[in-house]
């Protein structure tokens, strides 16, 4: 399992109610389901991935986070997880506000565009950076709204969203991935 998933799973309290938005093939959900809480379900847009979740025996709702989060009532989950898909939405600002409405807490991960290798790639090669977490070319990337850890923290501060921002400059340079717990 990805290291990222391990960190996310450890942020979730036992026996809590969880929604994994953009749950993909269900790998993270399966781990949480088996080890942390079995009150977990996923929302996933890809039919192929939905079938993979079903095959794992997970509860999944086929749907689009940008449209379908609104059907859930306020604070209906203890945690809403959004793993590495924020930058792929048409309207990430709306998705963040929906996550914080539906979940008491949201766990959000983003690929960090401020990571030193990304910066060096752009600085010296002068082309769009390609790394392990950003594997696509500019013309076929699903990522529409790339940001850095610092950008995301600044956004949350501006919107009065609670977020841990210790050692920000250091993390912004040396982390490939930002993992945050945010709440209103």
């Amino acid at each position: 399992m990805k290291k990222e998933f391990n960190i996310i799973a450890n942020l979730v309290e036992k026996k809590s109610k969880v929604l994994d938005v953009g749950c993909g093939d269900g790998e993270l959900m399966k781990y949480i389901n088996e080890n942390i809480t079995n009150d977990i379900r996923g929302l996933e847009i890809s039919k192929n991935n939905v079938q993979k979740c079903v095959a794992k025996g997970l509860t999944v709702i086929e749907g689009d986070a940008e449209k379908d989060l609104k059907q859930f009532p306020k604070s209906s989950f203890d945690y809403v997880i959004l793993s590495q898909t924020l930058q792929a939405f048409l309207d990430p600002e709306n998705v963040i506000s929906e996550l914080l409405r539906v979940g008491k807490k949201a766990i959000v991960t983003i690929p960090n565009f401020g990571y030193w290798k990304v910066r060096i790639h752009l600085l010296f090669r002068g082309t769009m950076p390609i790394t392990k977490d950003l594997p696509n070319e500019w013309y076929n990337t699903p990522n529409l709204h790339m940001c850095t850890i610092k950008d995301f923290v600044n956004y949350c501060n501006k919107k009065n969203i609670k977020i841990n921002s210790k050692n920000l400059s250091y993390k912004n340079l040396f982390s490939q991935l930002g993992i945050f717990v945010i709440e209103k």
Partner: protein
Amino acid sequence: MNDIKKVKKLIIDKPLKLDCGQTISNFPLAYETYGKLNDKKDNAILAFHALTGDQFASGVNPITNKEGWWNYLIGPDKAIDTKKYFVICANVIGGCMGSYGPSNINPKTNKNFGTEFPVLTINDMVNAQYHLLEFFKIEKLFSVLGGSMGGMQVLQFVSNFPNKSETAIPIACTHSHSAQNIALNELGRQSIMADHNWANGFYEENNKTPAKGLAVARMAAHITYLSKKGLQEKFGRKLQERDDLKFGFDADFQIESYLRHQGSVFVDRFDANSYLYITRAMDYFDLSKQFDGNLSKAFEKTNTKFFIISFTSDWLYPTSENREIVIALNSIGKDVGFVEITSDKGHDSFLLNVPDFLNTIKNFLNTSYNKKNEKRI
């Protein structure tokens, strides 16, 4: 038709008040079971059939000698494994496979009921079938499931009996029958009624049946169960056992011949009046209206775990209508999964060998069953 007298029947002696205001009692409910009810009585699944189905969901139907309508899904080692689960399926009241319906004898006239049979609703059908739980002394079903009209019965069942099933799988259905679907049903009914032999519903007295009208009703309905793409791929403009057009009205095209065949085999197994009564019950189905237009209220009291399934090419009960049920459940925080299965086979997909569909049900049921037993430990 004498064989129908031999099917298993539960005689329901308790009076059942119907939505139309009449009360029926001492009426038969024909049913079949597959697998064994375990000692804990926690492995029972109630399957609801669609418009033209019956209680013979699995194996071979002893009356028609054809495969049961859900033989792909239900049976030993199948998606619903009858070595593990106990499946009950009943013929709906209004039907013609042994349950109380318009071809039964009206005690007042000593003749067949015909159109003097009371108009039924999905609610009436479900309330009649609830007696099966008492008969088998099942405190709580493990699951209720059904497609199309069967799915409507699932929704009504959970709404009427919120704590009587662990899980529920409504498939390719709706919570409120649409204008388009009412229109299509009306087309079928008018076709039957336009057949001279129908005789206002009292055809059995004349020993005649409105076979032509019923066949046309079936042909029209059958088209709605398929998809344009599916039809095009299967039939296209292929000709029926001829090299060229015959410039007449015989079945030149394979699709014509296919539909005629569907119509003619249907009339051998189905009663025209039952077709009228059951389509009427579907048209009257509007679960949200029963709850002042708020569908969520229908499920407020339930803890049943739902899994809803629709099909991409189903234009009769499209994904959007199935999704409305998902939204109603999510909006009150109920446990619900939802999948739209990719299939070119139209509304009929739920009756066919569509592996993603069969696997979805298998995985959902088996995981839910294991979870339920874990909880107990």
